[in-house]
């Protein structure tokens, strides 16, 4: 285990400064209320590029800043604190990992600098049903000549509505449920046969349902039929990022709640002097501390040995779901009626916590995966 060194502390502090300035929660509110077409600000995305975040998991040879997963998590945590909307998770975390680890030299040269320069938004299309289950991939890819033809449907594709390209998990062999026979294809989002439905979710963010109708796919990522591990690499980076985002959501709603406990008076006293609330707040603080350690441990493992990080990542995402849920529930409860209003931001945190719990596997998914990895 590590303590954050000076570089990372600086990364965190500048991230906090940048995001509170450029993308406070009011920015998400503005995107929502103006029914913004993209659901995020392209100017902000450009700013993130200038900060080096788009290339955070990309090596310097391909134009990245290469801060590693610990750095990635610090940025995600700060994004959770201000609920900043951007294609960071899909593009800079998951797509960059899939291409960086599974792409040919050619593919890396083509795509990684494009990601780092914020010239390409790339979504990862995995889920097909209500729940995250990568090995259940059913979308068919059939070989026709020297290309594959994709047929099927994807859902909950983060940033699918604004993507320039899509990495699609498809089945080239076997049955849904088999890890073998899964392939990844990189397709142009405008390719004939692709239809994208933008889905606005409870947290005022976006995902997409995407139909693939005889879509021609020529560009495979990794070895056809054997890309499940590569997919897992990309997903694990994403899951760690989401866990870190939940850490930020929990931390920020907690801080706002504690501030309210020191400000709101009832019975002639600050409500923060009531022991019933003090102990619940203290318990929650402890839980957030435990979560922080698991997120850090997962990212240290991802940096060191990404192929062996599944257990640590699942432990972190599991705990993130549990602590995130507790933090926002306690926040709404301790804010009383105010907590239920759209006027204050607490509700935004509750909504985002719900969708990040679901994203890339909920607590049950990760509990189960953790147990499987420990052979029970």
């Amino acid at each position: 285990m590590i303590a954050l060194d000076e570089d990372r502390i600086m990364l965190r502090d500048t991230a906090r400064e940048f995001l509170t300035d450029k993308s406070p929660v009011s920015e998400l509110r503005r995107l929502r209320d103006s029914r913004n077409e993209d659901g995020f600000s392209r100017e902000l995305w450009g700013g993130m590029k200038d900060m080096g975040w788009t290339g955070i998991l990309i090596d310097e040879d391909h134009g990245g800043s290469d801060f590693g997963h610990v750095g990635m998590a610090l940025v995600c945590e700060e994004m959770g604190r201000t609920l900043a909307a951007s294609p960071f998770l899909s593009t800079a975390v998951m797509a960059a990992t899939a291409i960086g680890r599974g792409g040919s030299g050619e593919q890396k040269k083509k795509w990684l600098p494009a990601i780092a320069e914020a010239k390409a938004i790339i979504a990862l299309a995995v889920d097909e049903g209500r729940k995250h289950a990568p090995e259940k991939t059913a979308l068919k890819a059939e070989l026709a000549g020297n290309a594959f033809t994709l047929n099927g449907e994807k859902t909950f594709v983060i940033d699918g509505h604004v993507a320039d390209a899509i990495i699609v998990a498809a089945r080239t062999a076997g049955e849904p449920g088999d890890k073998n026979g899964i392939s990844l294809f990189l397709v142009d989002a405008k390719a004939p046969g692709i239809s994208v439905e933008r889905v606005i979710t409870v947290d005022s963010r976006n995902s997409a349902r995407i139909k693939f109708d005889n879509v021609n796919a020529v560009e495979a990522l990794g070895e056809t039929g054997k890309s499940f591990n590569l997919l897992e690499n990309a997903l694990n980076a994403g899951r760690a990022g989401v866990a870190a985002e939940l850490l930020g959501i929990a931390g920020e709603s907690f801080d706002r709640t504690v501030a309210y406990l020191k400000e709101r008076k009832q019975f002639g006293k600050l409500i923060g002097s009531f022991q019933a609330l003090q102990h619940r707040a203290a318990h929650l603080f402890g839980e957030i501390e435990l979560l922080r350690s698991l997120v850090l441990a997962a990212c240290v493992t991802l940096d060191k040995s990404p192929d062996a990080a599944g257990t640590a990542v699942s432990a972190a995402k599991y705990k993130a779901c549990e602590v995130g849920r507790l933090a926002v529930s306690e926040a709404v409860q301790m804010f009383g009626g105010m907590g239920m209003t759209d006027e204050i931001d607490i509700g935004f945190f509750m909504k985002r916590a719900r969708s990040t719990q679901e994203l890339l596997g909920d607590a049950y998914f990760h509990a189960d995966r953790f147990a499987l990895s420990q052979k029970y």
Partner: protein
Amino acid sequence: MPLETFRRETREWLAQNCPPEMRKPSRGEPDICWGGRNWEFQSEDQKIWLERMAARGWTVPMWPKEYGGGGLSREEEKILREEMRAISARSPLESFGIWMLGPALLQFGSEAQKLEHLPKIARGEIRWCQGYSEPGAGSDLASLQTKAEDKGDHFLVNGQKIWTSYADKADWIFCLVRTDPAAPKHKGISFVLFDMATPGVTTKPILLISGKSPFCETFFDNVKVPKANLVGTLNDGWTIAKYLLTHERASIGGGLAIAGMRSLPAEAIKAIGRDESGRLADPFVREEVIRAEIDGRALLATIERYKAEAKAGQGVGAKSAILKYAGTELNKRRYEAFMTIGGSDALEWESERSEEGTLAREWLRTKANSIEGGTSEIMLGIVAKRILDLPEA
């Protein structure tokens, strides 16, 4: 010495010096070596192991060498722990001296006190007990009434302590006494040390729900304590008391996190078995096990993170309260799970099969975890006030 060399030499030394009996997994309490004047070693191997480790200062690896320690750095100590774990080597010595008094003396003791007491702790020659709680002063420890009157060259101590763990087995006591009854409650307390064999000290064991009596009522009737046995400044004992409690809490939380005596997944699989697909057969128990295992990891990772942060000069205060609270509540949950897994077998109290109700007694013992060393409610109160800065009621 480069760390890799240290690791190699440690491994070799352990291989040659750790006796076979001391490499069998500890069953917890019955296998612990507490040391002390009247200690009866459970085996020759236990004795040899203590002597060999003490000779290297490795019963207290990070204490300075001049006080009987090993003088190891944090990194070296970690390597020693890892290498011991790798061969399942038992801890050679556990004691209140190591966990509590030692750190307090290192910080507040006079040179003479350090030289007098620390090496005996390190060698397991003197066993200490903790005289803090009184019948009227538990969570509100600072309201303690045991008084020590100044009689020129000595203090005269009168009063009663309670819940004094192993007082009947201990050789010496570190004790909180009131030396200024007129001062505000935190300001009139002093920290003194004395021999339990001093005339006027008596102990009376208390029977616990586990059927055991590890702790006592302790009575002081005109006990003479030499002035030289005052630690730190007169009437400023509360500072030392608190410092010591921090160590006690951190070691309770940390100790429980690594107390790998019983593995929840292993016992669950043994008792319940696996289904066709190889999974632990009961999905409800499986979920309990997973939750406890992940929280166990989280606790260990947090202890490690706090150590790393302390070394880098960062981090929040009052961490020991978080670790104590999280560790003890988790341990209670784990033992509820062990009892559920054991079913009616786990209820057996006197049978040979159950080794005289070992599990049931351990389960009952865990209930004290969130009471001893400051209750969970007190820990939460500390976090609320010291870290969150919430207003007084």
